[in-house]
């Protein structure tokens, strides 16, 4: 499980944010286009690609993409 793949999958869910601007340290909820739909999309993407059932609370307590990735790794 590579963080680069995870970042690429997250980048897919954003329309206006340049994929190259996303790194492990990106505070994803502070991005201009962050929305509840993207939050739901992250949960669905992680379920589909990693077979991990994230909760809304996991999104709430994660600040960076790395934080989120760590939760996915722990539960995979």
């Amino acid at each position, binding site marked *: 499980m590579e963080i680069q793949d995870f970042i690429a999958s997250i980048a897919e869910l954003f329309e206006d944010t340049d994929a190259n601007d996303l790194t492990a340290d990106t505070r994803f909820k502070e991005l201009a286009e962050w*929305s*509840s739909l993207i*939050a*739901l999309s992250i*949960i669905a993407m992680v*379920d589909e690609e990693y077979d991990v059932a994230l*909760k*809304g609370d996991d999104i709430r307590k994660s600040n960076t993409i790395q934080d989120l990735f760590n939760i996915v790794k722990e539960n995979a």
Partner: protein
Amino acid sequence: MYNPFSLNGKTILVTGGSSGIGRATAIECGKLGANVVVTGRNPERLKGVFDELDTSAAQRHQMVVADLATTDGIDCLTAALPNLDGLSSNAGTIVGNKPIRFLNEMDIQSIMQTNTFAHVLLAKLLFKKKLLNKGASCVFTVSIGGTLSHVPGSSIYGMSKAALDSFVKYAAIEFSARGIRCNSVCPGMIDTPLVNSPTLTDEDMAIDAQKYLLKRYGKPEEVARTAAFLLSDASSFITGTSIVVDGGYTVNH
């Protein structure tokens, strides 16, 4: 005593009766004097609801464990039924609700099966087998979701409820030949196990509740009492329509 809202002497079938709005409707109908036939999938929870039903007016209640998402379940239920004066059709799910780009055929079929097809097939069988008495009332739990409100990530749920809401109007027309009324109740967010989705945090729900004029989500009993009104003779000239029970959410958006 004068009380057109009473359900005394009426026999009412409540589906999805083991939790949430269905459970509250079964209990409310019992309190208003109805003989309740309560059905649901989970035997333990259903028994719990059955035991809670009011019997102070010598009502005779019945419970039938059945999964209405299957044809066998619907057949099994209709075979066990007495003649009915009312139907409260509640079974519903949000499992598999997700953004459109992540939908798969199984999610779509499973939501449509429970939220739309099961209600349609049950109503069809009750009518065809003449299990609904003349002048009976059918009440379907729809939702503001898909009919009046559209939030991202819930397309199939909304679609299933809008389809059901549409069916209710056709049923009102076709069933009127026997004086049978059909209406829907459209709740906003109600505190039930169904809306406790793990994708929402308590914080999300608290913020969302502020969008309601009454600054809170509804209680199952508040929807149940609306259904009870539609099941009673107090609503005898109401058919083919829908009552919104949303604490002022839609008027505020």
